[in-house]
């Protein structure tokens, strides 16, 4: 009787955790700018000021008070096993006050997204896809929401509104890795359920380019704080 109970428990453990590693940790940390913040002149808005405002901070580089970098993309490479890609998650990409939100959007390969216009004016969402089906749809105020085609290929895609060129741009990252996240407004990120191991971590930022770090996930949680440096041009 006791023996069979143990067997059932062991079986249950295998069933529950079988798909994911039993001892998974998280990788968290902060992405910061490695040099003093550059001075950035605000963008002067020359059209639709009643919706877009008169001046805007560029969303190319958004820094917190202590130089934390928002909108950096962090991806742990070469993870085998671990959690599954969630393609059913509802993802919204919003146009509001002539700004795309979020500025960097991670899209699991195979997923579709809802594109929302909260402004009383027309925007056009134009994706510069080379592998995925490109999108360029006008979205007047009367078309509050539509669903994109499925993103079927891993690709980094530039997004812009041509009508509000220079004000409205964004990036889509179609990924087949469930270990890809974007840093928050203070530069912080947290990647959960990482199986133990030593991995390369790629950090990408629109204005700063790519940088690669290493992280080791053992029994507990790992911390990864990164200083991003602008890349010298060749």
């Amino acid at each position: 009787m006791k023996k069979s109970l143990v067997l059932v428990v062991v079986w249950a453990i295998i069933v529950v955790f079988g798909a994911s590693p039993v001892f998974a940790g998280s990788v968290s940390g902060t992405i910061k700018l490695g040099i003093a913040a550059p001075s950035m002149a605000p963008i002067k808005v020359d059209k639709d000021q009643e919706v877009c405002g008169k001046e805007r901070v560029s969303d190319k580089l958004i820094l917190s008070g202590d130089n934390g970098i928002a909108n950096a993309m962090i991806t742990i490479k070469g993870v085998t096993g671990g959690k599954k890609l969630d393609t059913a998650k509802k993802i919204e990409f919003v146009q509001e006050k002539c700004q795309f939100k979020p500025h960097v959007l991670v899209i699991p390969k195979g997923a579709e997204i809802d594109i929302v216009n909260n402004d009383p004016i027309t925007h056009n969402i134009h994706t510069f896809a080379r592998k995925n089906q490109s999108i360029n749809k006008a979205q007047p105020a009367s078309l509050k929401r539509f669903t994109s085609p499925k993103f079927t290929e891993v690709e980094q895609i530039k997004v812009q509104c041509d009508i509000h060129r220079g004000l409205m741009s964004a990036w889509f990252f179609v990924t087949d890795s469930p270990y890809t996240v974007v840093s928050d407004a203070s530069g912080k990120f947290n990647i959960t359920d990482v199986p133990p191991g030593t991995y390369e971590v790629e950090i990408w930022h629109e204005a700063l380019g790519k940088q690669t770090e290493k992280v080791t996930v053992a029994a507990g949680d790992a911390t990864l704080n990164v200083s991003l440096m602008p890349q010298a041009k060749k």
Partner: protein
Amino acid sequence: MRTILSLFFFLILALPAFADEKPASGGSGNVEAGKVIYDKRCIFCHGKEGAGDGPASERFSPKPRDFTMGLFKYRTTPNGMMPTDDDLFKVVSHGLPGTGMPAWDDVLSEQDRRDVVAYIKTFSERFAKQTEPLPVVAIGAEIPSSPESIEKGRELFQKLECFKCHGNEGRGNGPSALTLTDDKGDPILPRNLTLNWHFRGGGEAKDIYMRINTGLNGTPMPSFTDSLDNEKSWHLANYVRSLSPATRPAMDVVIKSKKVTGAIPTDPADPFWQAGGEGGQDANWFPMVGQVVRHERHFTPTVRDIFVKSVFNQDEIGFLISWNDPSESKEGDPLPTPGGAVEEDLFGSFGQEEDSSKAAAPTTASDDAISVQFPSVKPEGFKKPFFVRGDDKLSVNLWNWTAGKLSESNSNGIDKETMQAQEGVAIQGAGGYKEGQYQIVLKRSLLSDDKVNDTQFEVGKFTSIAFQARDGHNGETGTKMSISHWYFVLLEPETPKEVFIYPPLVFLAVLGFELILRWRLRKSNDSKK
């Protein structure tokens, strides 16, 4: 039984139609045969690898299609999707009017064109990945154009904010127009919707219907299909169609200057120039091309059409000249950067020496301008000065309107222009820019004192006339401009009174003669009996 019979007749009737249509899927073209034709005919513009980078490509705006991107503008498939074989076949066959893409239907056989299409499809892997059949945008029951439909379309044009790029009156001059680029980053202008003979994909309502539903892949023109049903598509298409003339203007090489009794007003908005006014006749239309005859050549001009009408009275001759330009420009105006408000490189100077060898692109505009060109002296016989600003032997007389300033000059070649003294300038004129269009009146006395440098106008005589235009937002200064060929202006003599007297007299004389003839014939017939 009736159903079977009608089905039978339907099949008989439908068969020839089906037989005509080539299958739209692959297989009808041969890739290897297509490559041979491509390497001979297409490579010069579209490049060896199909990247739109052939040796001639830099002379074109728009640039030749880069097939490797797998983005095609003129399709019948929904936004972002690949074109059908027939879509590509149509473009190869009929060309794209107003671009460097010629029609190949009278050069290549149908099979050749299908083969080329098959080869073009090898440049982008998107075609190979397209395994499912492509959906095609269906055009529903037509709503014929009517004032009601056009009005509904006008409301949609406002509501959907088409004017943001195409302008309030459709002349491609909207607030976002000058910041646009295509997916390769090359500047692109929204179509001027008032000149439908330049629409690449066809200028009729059904073509416009297709474009607003499919969008133009690889360009800022989006698909509006989620906001349009069949009815709305027709209304908007009918409205856009109504912005252009019902028929493409025919080119008449002679501008008939019309005799008027009163003064010639210099304000183009004066009722005199409007329909019903003394100078309200239809304008002549002339095509304009880039100046590619003399160095430095200009292959990508803005102004492609000019509209001209002329009147004269006993003292003066006047011209109303209009042309389209997406922007009003004066010397020193800041140029919008393609990319809009800001595309700065935040860390551009980090770890990098300033590269001073790079030629800085101009950041300011030059003046928009128009010149009307005449031979300085009426040439003997058929010899005319060279049509691009004259030649060593024969000079031309130019009336210049340059961002509001008037001047007269003479020229013996493209870089040999001599300005006349400003205090002696005799031309008068006014007008300006409104909603993507310039309208300028220029006038002068028929005769002037300077018989060597100034053209003299005589009633009943043909005078050669040509036009040159500049768009200051398009780097058009010096030799860079749009030019026309020589045409004529004829000061139409007043109809002499005799015209109204002689024809009836001749008619009566002929009638009388015939009556006499008839009477005599009858008489001689009678006498033979």
